[in-house]
């Protein structure tokens, strides 16, 4: 780094001192503040004070003999490993300690991996997956014996994920091998520090845990770019490319800018638009997202570090990663949907101590200005989102039970103690532990798994005997699961990136789509690769990647409700919100602006149909849950077909004739009685659970994930997770992994805890019912975003017959009515525009 800081900050010294006192610790600081040194000089200083006598040193085949493995640096990002190694090596050289340092990730060559198992370096930079893999070898008991420190980088990234659970389990194992090991974590600021601390040091920490905070606050300078004339109706769906001119002007004003968008598609669109407006920037701007070829991504990252680029359009793929010193501005297009994410992204600029971060916010629609104000307020009040903990997931435990049996046969009590020492499994029930151990030995359900032996119970100890089982298990260690992706490659060679299999399946020869900022024409799909050539013109297909829609966090949602309350009360507003006044006046005039203790229900009945809008302002997933629940309960009694549309603010129920209920009775339809059962049936829970089960089946080792070079002899072991799901449901319905899948659907996907809170809040609120004459600023985005998700109770056979009838009658009438409704929707929009003076 060019600006090498020589004198240590107080908080860094504090970290070292507590390390040397034998404490565990959690360091909270944003990137670029000197976190690495704060953590790393702990073990190095420790060595200077108390070196290990030479007799314990490892004799290495290559190079001089060095101290045995003393320190581990766990990084969640493989891409970060090399960069981290450089920074750590710098300190080792600087202090002149005789340590060897190596990295170990899935990219490490197998010969080096082998050597590391037998004669490990003194310090290792490692990913959680590689660590677990190392722990699965019997040698690990010897290798980790002298270990003094484990440091986990980006702990906030691992928290609340199954990778975090995997790390907790690995740490528990390490502490059993080396009981005095100190655990240190590095984290960005998060809402629930206690949870972060306990997950790190475990349930029964051997030593006190210090919380170290960097005293310097990184200042965030947020600028809002508002369009000159706010459209009366916030448009939905289309991100505001309208703001292109302003964005380009901002890019011009800085040396180097990161432009964050929320989805990969928007990244592609913005990159194209900027390039079209400024063709002279070709070669100086770049694109970065998770579906691009790793070579391309690495190239872009290096070019940013070297200061070669004026701008990079990117997604969360650049949220984390190496220091981008040259970046001095971040542009966020569209709401980041969470305060932590906003801070993280802003922190990618001004990346050195003492400099402030500069963030320019470009709202995608008018209401996002409120979201930004809410985030701004949350930052100043230090209300950062919490990371919800996952409670004792059994799939991870199944994997762990096999991994540990590979390393060393264990007795049940030993296993239980070790697992319960983690925070995640502190309350693991005896019967669940029994089930997991039974499941890996006998399948858990005696008559159903006669020929099953993964782990054998041998004189009271669990062990893996079958070599093939151990080989396969090691291949599938980890909790990162991904859907089938197809490589996209030029005919001449040169890899561009990946598209999802489902998208590739729909591509026809000659279809054009954007990827990596290039317009590509599909030539053919062969050998799992989409072969393309460059082309000109307009795209005919848009790749779809899963995981685009982040719901508004509950902290931010509350902030939004507070601002809306302020607007309703006509309190003095910040400048940015002044811009919304016209829009809000209209809402007030045509309907109502709900206060904090009110719930707004709007209804619009015309010859197009009957629409009912309910605003919970609680984020997309809650809206979805509420919508599905209402539609399900109503259609069960009224036998009608209801469509649902949702966004972060509310939901719309829609029926071509009549929804058939009185708005005043909504409270009754939203009762919390039998909530769980109803919500599960309403959302076609089997389908959701089946999808969720994919990851669980992979983690628990129920399927053999094929590897590219797999031999033919493995083919008869291929089964889709969906088939496994069916087999379990039919022949082992009590299997706990099925329950886990449905629990995860409820808590993660549907966020049932938030749904319950929202329902309780609604019960206690005053309900305001308004019959509309035209679409309001609140309801219009819902009308536009209408998803036609029909809730009905026909059987599949009935449905197919119906579809077939429709097809046979010809699609003509359907398309006619579609264009008609589209046209009238546009017309409705126009009319309401006209009525405004």
């Amino acid at each position, binding site marked *: 780094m060019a600006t090498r800081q020589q004198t240590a900050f107080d908080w860094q010294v504090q970290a070292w001192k507590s390390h040397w006192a034998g404490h565990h610790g959690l360091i909270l600081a944003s990137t670029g503040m000197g976190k690495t040194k704060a953590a790393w000089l702990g073990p190095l200083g420790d060595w200077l004070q108390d070196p290990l006598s030479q007799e314990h040193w490892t004799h290495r085949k290559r190079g001089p003999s060095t101290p045995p493995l003393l320190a581990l640096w766990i990084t969640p990002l493989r891409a970060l490993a090399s960069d981290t190694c450089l920074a750590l090596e710098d300190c080792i050289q600087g202090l002149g300690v005789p340590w060897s340092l190596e990295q170990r990730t899935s990219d490490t060559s197998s010969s080096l991996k082998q050597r590391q198992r037998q004669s490990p370096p003194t310090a290792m930079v490692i990913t959680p997956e590689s660590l677990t893999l190392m722990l699965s070898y019997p040698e690990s008991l010897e290798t980790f014996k002298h270990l003094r420190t484990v440091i986990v980088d980006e702990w906030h990234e691992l928290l609340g994920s199954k990778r975090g659970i995997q790390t907790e389990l690995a740490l528990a194992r390490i502490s059993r091998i080396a009981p005095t090991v100190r655990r240190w974590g590095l984290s960005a600021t998060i809402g629930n520090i206690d949870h972060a601390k306990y997950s790190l040091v475990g349930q029964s920490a051997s030593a006190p845990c210090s919380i170290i905070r960097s005293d310097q606050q990184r200042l965030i300078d947020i600028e809002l770019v508002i369009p000159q004339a706010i459209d009366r109706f916030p448009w939905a769906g289309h991100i505001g490319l309208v703001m292109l001119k302003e964005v380009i002007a901002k890019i011009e004003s800085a040396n180097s800018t990161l432009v964050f968008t929320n989805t990969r598609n928007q990244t592609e669109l913005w990159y194209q638009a900027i390039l079209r407006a400024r063709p002279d920037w070709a070669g100086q701007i770049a694109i970065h997202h998770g579906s691009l070829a790793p070579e391309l991504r690495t190239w872009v990252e290096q070019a940013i570090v070297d200061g070669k680029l004026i701008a990079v359009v990117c997604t969360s793929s650049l949220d984390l990663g190496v220091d981008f010193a040259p970046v001095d501005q971040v542009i966020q297009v569209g709401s980041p949907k969470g305060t932590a994410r906003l801070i993280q992204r802003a922190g990618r600029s001004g990346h050195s101590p003492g400099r402030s971060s500069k963030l320019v916010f470009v709202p995608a629609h008018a209401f996002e200005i409120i979201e930004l104000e809410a985030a701004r307020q949350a930052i100043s009040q230090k209300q950062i989102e919490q990371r919800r903990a996952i409670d004792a997931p059994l799939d991870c435990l199944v994997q762990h039970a096999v991994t540990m049996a590979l390393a060393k046969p264990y007795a049940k009590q030993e296993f239980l103690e070790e697992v319960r020492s983690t925070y995640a499994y502190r309350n693991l029930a005896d019967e669940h532990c029994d089930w997991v151990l039974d*499941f*890996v030995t006998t*399948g*858990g*359900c005696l*008559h*159903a*798994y*006669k*020929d*099953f*032996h*993964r782990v054998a119970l041998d004189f009271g100890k669990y062990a893996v005997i*079958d070599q*093939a*089982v151990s080989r*396969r*298990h090691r291949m599938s260690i980890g909790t990162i699961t991904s859907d089938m992706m197809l490589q996209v490659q030029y005919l001449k060679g040169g890899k561009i990136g990946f598209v999802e299999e489902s998208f590739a399946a729909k591509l026809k020869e000659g279809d054009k789509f954007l990827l990596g900022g290039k317009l590509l024409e599909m030539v053919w799909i062969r050998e799992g690769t989409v072969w393309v050539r460059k082309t000109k013109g307009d795209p005919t297909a848009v790749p779809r990647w899963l995981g685009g829609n982040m719901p508004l966090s509950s902290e931010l949602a509350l902030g939004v409700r507070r601002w809306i309350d302020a607007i309703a009360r006509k309190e003095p507003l910040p400048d940015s919100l002044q811009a919304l006044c016209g829009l809000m006046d209209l809402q007030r005039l045509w309907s109502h602006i709900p206060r904090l203790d009110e719930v707004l229900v709007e209804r619009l009945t015309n010859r197009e149909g009957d629409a009912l809008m309910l605003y919970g302002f609680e984020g997309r997933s809650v809206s979805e849950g509420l919508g599905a629940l209402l539609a399900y309960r109503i259609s069960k009694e009224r036998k009608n077909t209801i469509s649902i549309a949702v966004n972060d603010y509310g939901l719309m129920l829609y029926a071509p004739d009549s929804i058939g209920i009185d708005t005043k009775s909504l409270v009754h339809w939203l009762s919390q009685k039998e909530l769980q059962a109803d919500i599960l049936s309403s959302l076609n829970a089997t389908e959701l659970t089946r999808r969720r089960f994919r990851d669980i089946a992979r983690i628990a*080792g*129920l*399927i*053999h994930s094929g590897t590219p070079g797999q031999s033919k002899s493995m083919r*008869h*072991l*291929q*089964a*889709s997770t969906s*088939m*496994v799901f*069916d*087999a*379990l449901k*039919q*022949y*082992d319905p009590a*299997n706990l992994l099925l329950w886990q899948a449905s629990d995860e659907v409820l808590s993660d996907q549907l966020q049932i805890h938030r749904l319950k809170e929202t329902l309780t809040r609604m019960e206690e609120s005053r309900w305001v019912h308004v019959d509309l004459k035209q679409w309001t600023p609140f309801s219009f985005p819902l009308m536009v975003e209408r998803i*036609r998700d*029909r809730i009905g109770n026909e*059987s*599949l*056979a009935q*449905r*197919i*017959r119906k*579809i*077939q009838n429709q097809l*046979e009658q010809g699609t003509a009438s359907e398309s006619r009515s579609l264009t008609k409704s589209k046209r009238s929707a546009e017309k409705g929009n126009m009319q309401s525009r006209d009525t405004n003076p």
Partner: protein
Amino acid sequence: MIIEHQGHCIELFPSGAIRWEKTLFVADLHLGKESVFQKSGLAIPTGATQKTLLDLVGHLENQPIDRLIVLGDLLHAPIGWTKDLESMLSDAIQARPEIRWELVAGNHDRRSHDRLRALGWLVHSDPLIEGRWRWMHEPPEEDSQTIQTRALTTLCGHLHPSFKVPLDTRRTQRVRCFWIRPNSIVLPAFGGWVGTHAIDPKQSDRIVLCVEGELIDWKC
């Protein structure tokens, strides 16, 4: 559902079986598949094998059948052969000694021919040609057809055909189906725990969907 195909009168069943006169045809049972998985350390519960066999026996009881022809892949793999499977198979055969149990061997039946013969199965290593019929496992390749074979009607399996029925503009649902082509019929897999392969039929083909115990004719 009774259909006429190239002058043959045959009956299709939602289970995936076909009856012609007194002969019943099924394909791709993949018996013992769960055991194959279990022996390889994958915890898949048993049950599908037994159910598949019961379904088959049920067919034989309800129809006037004197000959059963399995169009390949009766078993999933040699290591899936267990005592349980052996006794289930022999019980089935002993219960109906008057029926001729025949197998046109498929790729998955390799190395299991002798075991099956020992139980009383008639195992054919090559396609069977009888009258205007040809019975085989893998569908014939179009290019390899000769004038003689073109005149025959082929019944085969191997593909596990399914059709992606469009539920609405965004979603499709895979449904097992008979794939009826100008001179061949591909049977859906009869096995209870097998995957399917989505086919891309031509205009001249006909598809019969097997869904929830019903058969639905689908015009391509």
